[in-house]
């Protein structure tokens, strides 16, 4: 035991505060795996959901109506159902009827495991909100600016890439940050389908050690650190993207 571990063992011994992950290296590694999985989920889902948001917002400006309807239906479905229910639906509902493949255990397993389904569900959930956020940004770009772009000979696509989207992105940064923060916190529901993320691991630990208050505190602090670092990063990006003289 090092000094750090000894301190937490002493804390348990003297005050009954059982932060077992800080003095038992087996539990510590377990918690570390949970933390890694949470971060992994966060990074992948943030990136993918932003891609979904941008693509969806672009499709919404399409002149081909059925495409707009598809995006509309997608948004309605994912915005109006609870994420936990979506998670169960994907993993147990849709997951069970997926084509089966033989896995390395030699069993017939449906395609996509719990981790993949968690990523799909969370991405689509946050993506739906992102579409609306990007759309609001696009709609806020002054019409005159769009007309000026086309007067300068920009094609629809080029105007979107070089003029409309860069401006829209700056407008929707606050809303986007909000939604992505929400997404980071929502990753915790992946524990319902057995993804070994922070909350899941904490639950496994407290089920044996009965240190629910301590683990719950640790989980909250963990999320607080993750989310506040993310918010800090997003505000840095927002500042870096600021165009002098162009404020809303």
């Amino acid at each position, binding site marked *: 035991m090092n000094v750090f571990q000894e301190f937490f063992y002493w804390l348990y011994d003297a005050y009954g505060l059982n932060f077992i992950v800080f003095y038992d290296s087996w539990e510590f590694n377990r918690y570390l795996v949970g933390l890694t999985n949470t971060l992994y989920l966060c990074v992948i889902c943030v990136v993918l959901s932003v891609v979904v948001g941008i693509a969806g917002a672009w499709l919404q400006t399409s002149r081909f109506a059925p495409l707009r309807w598809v995006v509309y239906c997608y948004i309605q479905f994912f915005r109006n159902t609870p994420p936990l229910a979506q998670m169960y639906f994907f993993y147990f509902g849709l997951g069970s009827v997926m084509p089966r493949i033989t896995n390395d255990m030699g069993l017939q397993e449906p395609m996509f495991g719990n981790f993949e389904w968690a990523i799909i569900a969370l991405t689509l959930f946050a993506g739906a909100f992102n579409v609306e956020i990007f759309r609001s940004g696009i709609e806020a770009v002054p019409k005159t600016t769009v007309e000026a772009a086309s007067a300068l000979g920009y094609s629809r696509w080029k105007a979107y890439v070089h003029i409309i989207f860069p401006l829209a992105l700056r407008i929707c940064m606050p809303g986007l940050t909000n939604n992505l923060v929400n997404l980071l916190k929502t990753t915790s529901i992946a524990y319902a389908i057995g993804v070994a993320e922070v909350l899941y691991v904490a639950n496994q630990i407290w089920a044996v050690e*009965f240190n629910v208050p301590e683990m719950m505190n640790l989980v909250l602090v963990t999320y607080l650190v993750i989310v506040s670092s993310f918010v800090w990063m997003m505000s840095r990006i927002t500042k870096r993207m600021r165009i002098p003289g162009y404020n809303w």
Partner: protein
Amino acid sequence: MFRKILHGTLPVLAGLCAAGAATDASADAAFDKIKDRGELAVCSKVDYKPFGFRDTDGTPIGLEHDLIDDVRLRLEEKLGVAIKVNPIPVIAANRIQFLEGGKCDLLIATMTDKPERRRTIDIIEPNYYSSGVNILALKTVNINEWGDIQDQKMCSSQGAFWNKDLQQKYNIELLTFAGIAETEQALMDGRCLGLLTDDSLAAMRLAQERWNKDYELKVDTIMDASWGAAIQQGNPDFKALMEETITDWHKSGKIMELEDKWDVKRTPFATSMHEKYKDS
């Protein structure tokens, strides 16, 4: 004269009051609460056939719910009021917190008696039942002994007492869920090589055709551990009543009777406890 009498009686009165106060203080909070509300809140299982599950109309029934009803009858007799049972459905991962937090007065929910659990709640002696852990898996899966699950992915229930031990011993990857139904679905979907499960629950599953066609128990049951009923700490009277009740269950052979009623294979535990207590 009057003053003399007064002086003589006062200490006696004071003594009586003190005695009265003392009885009040020793009376037990759980009893008061149950009596006041005419209700016994019991943390119990509703997803653990045949020990606790739901009837077609939604009422919780099963071996443990029969035991709970027996406790209710005994409480009615003891407290002299009508009492109804308020079943609080729990899962392994939340039952102890529910009892500790006072959401229920009594816990009879397939809980294994463990020393670390006794630190926060009172587990009643003697234990009322016993079971161990086994592996339920497809007949075609090649598991013949516990060592065969080394480094494999196994399904289990969140909060099951064997999770950590087996994980440490065999370095298995655990896929756990909150409810029993989810663990079964995951097993049937081939998400894991096998399901770590209570042997008594598995035996009951294997009595059904949808299970025994393709699945079987793979190994010898290990970690045989007994189930304890539990109450909140600091309720001596309720504890005494529960101790007497469970002793009676073993003495009269009630547990074995209920095993027969619910089609559970008789456990060596129930039989040996009956042998032990029948002449006491």
